[in-house]
């Protein structure tokens, strides 16, 4: 049974709010009153996954059902606990944590309704207990929880779910299928194709064994602007489309200081108008930390800040200044992020987030500046072609995304050998990284500013 909601299905086009509301209602109905042991929700970037998790948690708690929440990282857990506490300051929430130093965000200490412990027994009786999958895996209980919510379920590995699934009777699984897949540092080919392949994603295993579970989809991205949703949806979610919650013109980005005619300024203006900008450097094979590209990224960030940007959106009538905390830089590798940070520090900029795709998952900014994963590379690899990586980098922004890249990536893609081995029984993952990369590149080339630094 699938209850995938086509935003355009069912008698006329619903407005985004109504379409999203209808999807949420159906999810909550299945979660609270359905007969199935599991409900799966696919949530594309910025579709309100956290809001859904918080709402479902509060409703389950209100219905008197003890609830455990499984998230993948400590940051995600703390974020969820804070959101829950914000929504309902009376509701007792348990934060189960490890015995490492600094196991949780100190901000939790200011919440009187949040109890923290390293032992699940100390948190018994609380309506909601939240922890990471890794911590839950060490918990033993006599009586399983009535309900669980598994957050970021597509980034969770099947073996991690195996370790915690005995703790709950039924669960709501929420996640984004387009982001980075979980991986293993050792080969697991011998289990490829098995329904319970331990290195596959938790959702893959769950659905292979329980194909009858209801599957829902949040149909509207509230983060991505109208300029970005169709591209991201088409390139990364070809069989499960979504749309933008806002329309062209609902969001505007303007700058007080006019362009100085340089490449960075021109690409900033292009992106402010079109939502996308490609700053293309001359073709050259470079190591990962290409100094020119790193400098170009830093220069774009610097000009974004210097030019006094202001963002207008549906959130407020007044323009909101584009400050450092509303800008992020995304890279493929850690050493690239370190080089960009160093270059920014050289300009006296230290408060702009610079991180890899892995760490930017789930985050949101007004403007993102991305160093293209294939820029300057002599060869493409599976790592650099991984769809999830590009998807994360291209879907963090509310207003505009500026990509810095050397010329020649289209040729690099064309010359990339495709002789991948095929494992029997493994579901082919779509979209293909090659195709997705080409789709994004095609679109970016419409907003290209060639620059010779």
């Amino acid at each position, binding site marked *: 049974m699938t209850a995938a909601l086509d935003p355009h299905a069912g008698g006329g086009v619903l407005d985004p709010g109504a379409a999203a509301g209808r999807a949420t209602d159906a999810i909550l109905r299945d979660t609270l009153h359905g007969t199935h*042991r*599991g409900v799966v929700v696919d949530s594309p970037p910025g579709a309100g996954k956290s809001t859904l998790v918080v709402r479902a948690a509060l409703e389950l708690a209100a219905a008197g059902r003890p609830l455990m929440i499984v998230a993948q990282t400590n940051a995600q857990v703390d974020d969820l606990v804070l959101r829950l506490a914000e929504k309902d300051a009376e509701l007792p929430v348990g934060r189960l944590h490890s015995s490492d*130093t*600094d196991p949780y965000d100190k901000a939790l200490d200011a919440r009187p309704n949040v109890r923290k412990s390293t032992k699940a027994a100390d948190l018994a009786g609380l309506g909601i207990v939240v922890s990471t999958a*890794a911590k839950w*895996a*060490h918990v033993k209980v006599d009586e399983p929880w009535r309900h669980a919510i598994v957050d970021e379920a597509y980034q969770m590995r*099947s*073996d991690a*779910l*195996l*370790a915690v*699934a*005995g703790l709950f009777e039924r669960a709501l699984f929420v996640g984004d299928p387009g982001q980075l897949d979980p991986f*293993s*540092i*050792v*080969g*697991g080919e*011998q*289990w490829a194709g*098995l*329904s*319970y*392949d*331990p*290195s596959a994603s*938790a959702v893959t*295993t*769950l659905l292979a*064994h*329980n194909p009858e579970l209801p599957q829902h989809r949040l149909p509207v991205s509230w983060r991505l602007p109208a300029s970005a949703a169709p591209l991201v949806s088409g390139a990364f979610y070809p069989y499960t489309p979504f749309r933008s919650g806002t329309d062209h013109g609902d969001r505007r980005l303007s700058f007080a200081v006019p362009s100085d005619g340089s490449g960075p300024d021109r690409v900033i203006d292009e992106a402010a108008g079109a939502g996308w900008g490609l700053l293309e450097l001359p073709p050259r094979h470079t190591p990962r930390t290409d100094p020119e590209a790193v400098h170009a990224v830093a220069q774009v960030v610097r000009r974004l800040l210097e030019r006094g940007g202001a963002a207008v959106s549906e959130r407020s009538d007044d323009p909101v200044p584009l400050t450092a905390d509303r800008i992020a830089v995304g890279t493929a590798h*850690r*050493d690239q992020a*370190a080089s960009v940070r160093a270059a920014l520090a050289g300009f006296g900029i230290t408060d702009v987030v610079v991180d890899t795709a892995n760490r930017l998952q789930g985050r949101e900014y007004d403007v993102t500046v991305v160093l293209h994963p294939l820029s300057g590379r002599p060869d493409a690899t599976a790592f650099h072609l991984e769809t999830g990586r590009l998807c994360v980098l291209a879907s963090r922004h509310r207003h505009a995304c500026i990509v810095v890249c050397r010329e020649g990536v289209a040729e690099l893609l064309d010359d990339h050998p495709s002789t991948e081995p095929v494992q029997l029984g493994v579901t082919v993952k779509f979209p293909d990284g090659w195709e997705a990369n080409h789709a994004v590149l095609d679109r970016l080339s419409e907003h290209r500013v060639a620059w010779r630094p």
Partner: protein
Amino acid sequence: MSLITTLARLEAVSTGRARPTATVRHRHLSERPLVFVPLTTAGEAGAPLGALVGTDRDAPRLLVVPQPRDRDLRFAFLAELADVVLPYVEAYADAVEAAERTETDPETGKRVKVEVDLCADAPQLIVPSRAGADFVRLLGRSMRFRRTAEQDPGTPHPAPPRVPLLGRWLTHFGERARVPGSSLLLALTDLLSRHWATGQSGVEDQHLGSLLAWIDPPAGESGDAAARRAELARDADGQLLCPPAGPATDPAFDNKLLAPAIEAYDRARTALAAAEDGAEADDRFGALTAAEQRIRDLVESRTRPTWDAVWHGIDLLRALPEGAHVPDRWTRDRWSFTAHRDRITAGEPPQPRVDDAVTAANKLAAREREQARLDAQEALDDPLVMAGRRLAGEAFAGEVTDVVMAYSEGRRPSPRPLVTVRTEDLPHLGERTKVYRSLEGKPQAAEFVAQEGDGDGGALLVLRVLDKMGRGKEPEPGSVPEKGDRVCFTLFEHDQRGGPKLPDPEETPWTHGGPPGDPDAVPQPDPLTEEDVL
């Protein structure tokens, strides 16, 4: 490929000789390994053609299947192989020492120490290449479900008595070989490639002859030339001078030499069967023996060069000193061997065709832990490996320039000295990143506090030492680095924590399909087809 390895390969190109990528030997080498050089029949799955096997480099045992499609001849081969391998394996099963193991008491659920047997040493199987290791696995799979006449008197083609047992052991060797750092079953090409970089690609390094040519070329010849000769040179008959290390044979050998020999053998056998009297039979038996001998000679001619090459490779590896953590990992191999010995003694069924969900997850978790352990131990044992980690920003080495005593806050202040290290390395340090150094074989933790200066001679990194300084207010002597000491810290942990305990297979949750079927059911043997029997 890391830049240090790339550099080693390029140096090999320019010097014409392989260059080291390790300064110690990172795998255990038995005093008395069992070397196995198998050949297989093209196009058939698990149809051996022959093998050289044994522990004496001067006296390998030659096993040959003169007609690989004849099941009886195949069984005869496997029975002979069992006669060589099983006594070798069983010799290690009997010598034990007492050891302690932590187990969960089934009644109290508590972790208790129990005294158990641990085999004092373990067998070691060495094959020429990765394909050889795969073949061991395949042979194991083809044998372990066979039934002997004793097990199943009604079976139409009973396997020789010890063949299923050999299948179970080869399966165990094959499965253990998938654990990073294990040494029960080693592929020599992998072992050599771990320790030397050649001036050719990894694909080409899979060719044992060519790999050895780079590492130890004949006097006066460059590695490149010797490797090309090993790979390509043929005699006047079009046969490779250095036959492939198998188990696959060269098609030119199959078509030109082996196929006519097998045909001659088949004819001789048919003729013998049709013999009408004793004298004729004697003659024809002689012809059959000669035909069989021809095939034996051919198989020996293709395996003997590989056999010698394997021992040559073992010699080269033995010249390297053993890494400090290698015995620790070999002990894990001994545990693995002992556990399988116990399963067989307890009469447990053979390993299933496919792992259940819990077993698969447990194996993956164990292999991930072993990989991390191996990566850490190799770096700690070998400055050249550590150099690679330092280049990658995962470790740093330098000189202590300053030590300032400091204490933790709280009721009982403990020492938390601040140590400043000058290093030219560029580690990926963030706020309070944990770093570790090896202190008398145990990891000592510190955390990154700040970076001071970035001038000539490298950066000054301030670290706060966190543990291993004893219980007193003053750190124990020698537990804190002193000014002028050379130190090396890693960003990775030296030890691996155990993972969570997964449910028992019979408690597999609904998300993973629920409990599997009867775990003790012995899988049916593979069905027979008419091609199996001539």
